[in-house]
């Protein structure tokens, strides 16, 4: 069975959940072979084995993570040339999509991005125009490269060997041209990553101010979820930009999405419409968000949201 390369998404050795989803998807397409870039593999090996990595190509050289994207592309291109895999799977994150794009150019291969499912023959399913259309696409030329949206495929364990093979690549000068001189970590607390979280609670214009986002955070924390914000809220400076859910922000696809004080303009819907279960609290009964919900409450969020938080905490 041909190998399917899976680029491991990790932060300082901590494997992101999307990687386990990619390994799960890779098993349908061939034999999963994870590709590890940077330090920290030893601590992650067990997890990759648990989710089905038959093999792991380990490129531990720190230089590969010192420049923007290009070194990972050169490593993957070399692995594709050496191992002739059936295809390459990556996470459809900002960086994952960029790696996919550059790799496609380097290999002159077809690439699909932001798919919500991938089937036999690397046929990708897309949810486009804010979830209104489901389209299927395939690659016509080269080694298929597919970037998969986090949270779209359920990760399932399937123990494998995770046999380690050290690999290295000699970088071109072009790959060293955009140097990362400092990584700045901004406060995030203990909450899960927005695009990976199983539960997301977002606040919008109705929240009315930065200080009131405490209500959203308390609700998110009661559920162990991430906090998001609509563009109206980030534009107003009530919540940091990297938490914006929507067309010009992040796309999320959690099991549960709770929209608080968000009207549901297309800008926002484009970023959350594929959430599995949607709940909304809004005082306007005509708010478009109610067209999407599984459960909605027309009411004052300052009453309903704290009561919900209290009730959830009581039931724990």
């Amino acid at each position, binding site marked *: 069975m041909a190998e399917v390369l899976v680029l491991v998404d990790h932060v300082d050795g901590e494997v992101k959940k999307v990687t386990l989803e990619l390994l799960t998807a890779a098993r349908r397409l061939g034999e999963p072979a994870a590709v590890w870039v940077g330090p920290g593999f030893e601590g992650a090996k067990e997890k990759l084995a648990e989710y089905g990595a038959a093999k792991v190509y380990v490129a531990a050289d720190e230089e590969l993570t010192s420049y923007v994207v290009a070194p990972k592309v050169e490593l993957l291109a070399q692995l594709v040339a050496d191992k002739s895999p059936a295809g390459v799977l990556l996470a459809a994150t900002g960086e994952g*999509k*960029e790696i996919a794009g550059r790799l496609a150019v380097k290999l002159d291969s077809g690439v699909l991005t932001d798919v919500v499912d991938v089937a036999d023959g690397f046929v990708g399913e897309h949810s486009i125009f804010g979830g209104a259309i489901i389209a299927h696409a395939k690659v016509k030329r080269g080694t298929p490269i597919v970037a998969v949206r986090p949270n779209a495929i359920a990760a399932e364990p399937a123990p494998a060997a995770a046999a380690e093979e050290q690999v290295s690549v000699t970088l071109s000068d072009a790959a060293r041209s*955009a140097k990362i001189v400092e990584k700045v970590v901004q406060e*995030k607390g203990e909450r899960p990553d927005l695009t990976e979280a199983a539960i997301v609670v977002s606040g919008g214009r109705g929240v009315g101010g930065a200080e009131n986002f405490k209500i959203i955070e308390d609700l998110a924390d009661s559920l162990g979820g991430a906090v998001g914000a609509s563009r109206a809220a980030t534009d107003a400076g009530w919540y940091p930009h990297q938490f914006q859910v929507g067309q010009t922000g992040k796309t999320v696809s959690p099991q549960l999405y709770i929209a608080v004080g968000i009207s549901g303009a297309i800008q926002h819907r484009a970023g959350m419409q594929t959430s599995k279960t949607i*709940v909304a609290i809004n005082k306007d009964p005509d708010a478009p968000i109610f067209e999407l919900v599984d459960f909605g409450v027309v009411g004052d969020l300052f009453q309903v949201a704290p009561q919900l938080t209290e009730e959830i905490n009581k039931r724990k």
Partner: protein
Amino acid sequence: MNIVVCVKQVPDTESPRKLKSDDNTLDRGAADGVINELDEYAIEEALLLKEAHGGEVTVLTMGPDKATDSIRKALAMGADKAVHLVDDALAGSDALGTSYAIQQVLGRIGFDLVILGSESTDARTGMLPAMLAERLGVPQLTLSSKVEIDGSAIKVQRITDYGYDKVEATLPAVVSVVEKINEPRYPSFKGIMAAKKKPVETLGVADAGIEADKVGLAGSASEVVDFAEAPPRAKGQIVTDEGDGGVKIAEFLASKKFV
């Protein structure tokens, strides 16, 4: 400094968007066309850099005749001139083909800096800026929330999941911007009038040295094989708060095993 801003005309997200059933490509006649929103931030950043460092801002777009609307808007905001790559042979190009076509034009017109929005609101692939950097062999300074230039040195802040990276490179380079970077200006009346006199060069595939078999639907390396409207969501339950709205949501969440 010679700055080229790549802009894309996209269907207005407020109007209905469709695919065509004959070739599964975007139906550009179905909706009003507007400049891709993030590209307005790219134009603004180009204008700010020009105001600080001098030089010239060229708008480059690939798209049908109608895309002149987006060119006019960019010129009215303050760009100096425009290049419009328009040819039936380009219709249906995927990101790979599009990046090749734009690379060919950039090679002809020259640049110190190429700026783009980080993704478009229609295809949303988020790949084109990185693909261009790969093809042009220049530094990739993408997903930027801040850009500083000093001589030939360029520094950006690149948005990441954990915050941002500080990235340094030397011009020429490809930059893509996120919405946080600035606040795009509105064209003034004077700007709109001036835009009418600014030069717009129209190029076809042959003029730009583009090999026609590498672009368009046939030259693309990926294809949409089918599409359908997503099944409508089942109508949800909506209640009016009578003092127990929070409790009712908790009960719903419990029924779905979330709590």
